[in-house]
């Protein structure tokens, strides 16, 4: 595939993802605003993969390698922390009978 076609594909993906992103949360009740924000926050933790990639490729430059390492650490914190925090928020939405924890 030519370079131009690849770039065009990337733009296709971008444009379609914009529409899906708008469409998918168009009807959210207010009480779910916070968990939803937190959930989307966890999803952009995928930036960790980018960190892994640059770390793997920056073999000959020590400084860049450590910057890549820092990106992996930050991305990983975003990813794991994001899902755990969201789950804790949503855990509290359980129905009454199942019984929540005392704080």
């Amino acid at each position, binding site marked *: 595939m030519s370079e131009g076609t690849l770039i065009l594909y990337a733009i296709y993906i971008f444009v379609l*993802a914009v529409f899906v992103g*708008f469409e998918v949360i168009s009807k959210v009740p207010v009480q779910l605003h916070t968990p939803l924000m937190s959930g989307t926050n966890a999803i952009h933790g995928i930036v960790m993969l980018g960190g892994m990639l640059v770390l793997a490729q920056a073999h000959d430059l020590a400084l860049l390698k450590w910057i890549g390492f820092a990106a992996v650490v930050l*991305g990983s914190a975003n990813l794991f922390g994001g899902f755990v925090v969201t789950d804790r928020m949503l855990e509290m939405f359980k129905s009454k009978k199942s019984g929540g924890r005392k704080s």
Partner: protein
Amino acid sequence: MNPKLLSDVAYLTSAILFIVGLKFLSHPRSARRGNQLAAIGMALAVVASLIFIWGGGHIEHGSDAGILIIVGILIGGVAGTIGARRVAITEMPQMVALLNGCGGGAAALISVVEYSRYMHAGESVDALGFGATLFGLIIGSLSFWGSLVAFGKLSGFMEKAITSTFQKLLTGAIFLGLITTLVWIGMGGGMNAFHLLIVLSFFFAILMVVPIGGADMPVVISLLNSFTGLAVAATGFSLREPALIISGTLVGASGTLLTLLMCKAMNRSITNVLFAGVGSGAVAASGGGAAGGAPKNVREISLEDTAVLLANVSSVVIVPGYGMAVAQAQHAARELADMLAKQGVEVKYAIHPVAGRMPGHMNVLLAEANVPYEQLFDLEQINPEFERTDVVLVVGANDVVNPAARHDKTSPIYGMPILDVDKAKHVIIIKRSLKPGFAGIDNELYYDPKTMMLFGDAKGVLSKLVEELKTQAA
């Protein structure tokens, strides 16, 4: 099967899981499953990426990059998980800000590496990838530093909005500086120009967020969250990684929409939130001054009288606010409600969309205390009912019940939909002092003749009310 194809199929699957997960997250029943689906999608993407990096021969023999990747994931993962597990319910907004900052920081760092590689290797670059790298740096930095400021503000440092003409001019100047530096880079400015861009991005972020009042931080965090999404999408463009483009864009788009929904709940525009400096000292003074015409007498009520009053009416509405969250009084509130319900009093909770520090904050807290859904009423449902309500119990809420929002055009919260608690027969406000709320403005409701103040810590007062009701019933 070749590693590239394998990882691409895995990325596609995880993208689908993210979309379905988001869909599920927007419905109360399926929300938790939605988050779990997204987490499964993420696990799949991470494993696929590991296979791709190892299997695809991206790590040279003798390189320690592979070990560093694993160590990095472990350090970040353990720190993030422990932080997320230990954080108190009331501090979750700060936690989200911090985690969002991590994501933004990661995107900015990746852009730094990418730019340096372009410079060192002199690789031929496509304009899109190059532009995306610069965009990723600026927006990622904005997210990182902005989130740290938001974290600080929510933790109680520099809560106030700080605005001045000088600050506005400086922000404008730095923005122009950013544009100029971008042009310089475009003309081959190299590493020097890039370093300048890093410094300017830092100052720009600080100057953008510091002027915004603490009460508006939820909207800011949501906006920065969508920015991080866009920054991640940008790194996806510069790394040619469709998984990052899809996920980042999804977050960018849905985050933007969510931010607008939050502004709508406060009847404000996003530009008003970002640039008006609501909650600064100057605005607060004018708001207070306007209300200052009325005589400032407050009526106090004792614990015992409150208990008697509550036990002898037929309908009570509890209005929770941030004060309840801070005092961890949600369990005490539920006990009181149960007690009253036993005595035949109808109890409802009125939830303002922006009560607390984040939309939905109160729902989360009350759900934690096992308050049934059916007792929670939102603004539109409950407002017509206040006229028929005997007693409104305001627990640590302030700005969301301030009648100035309805009539006082000089008030910074003018136009925000509020809970019309002043229409009820009696209003009892449980509060530690007469200190103004988070928006920094006085509340004329306190001086309303039918309002009675019950001073004290929300949790203590509510538990004592429960005791008092018990002794009275016995």
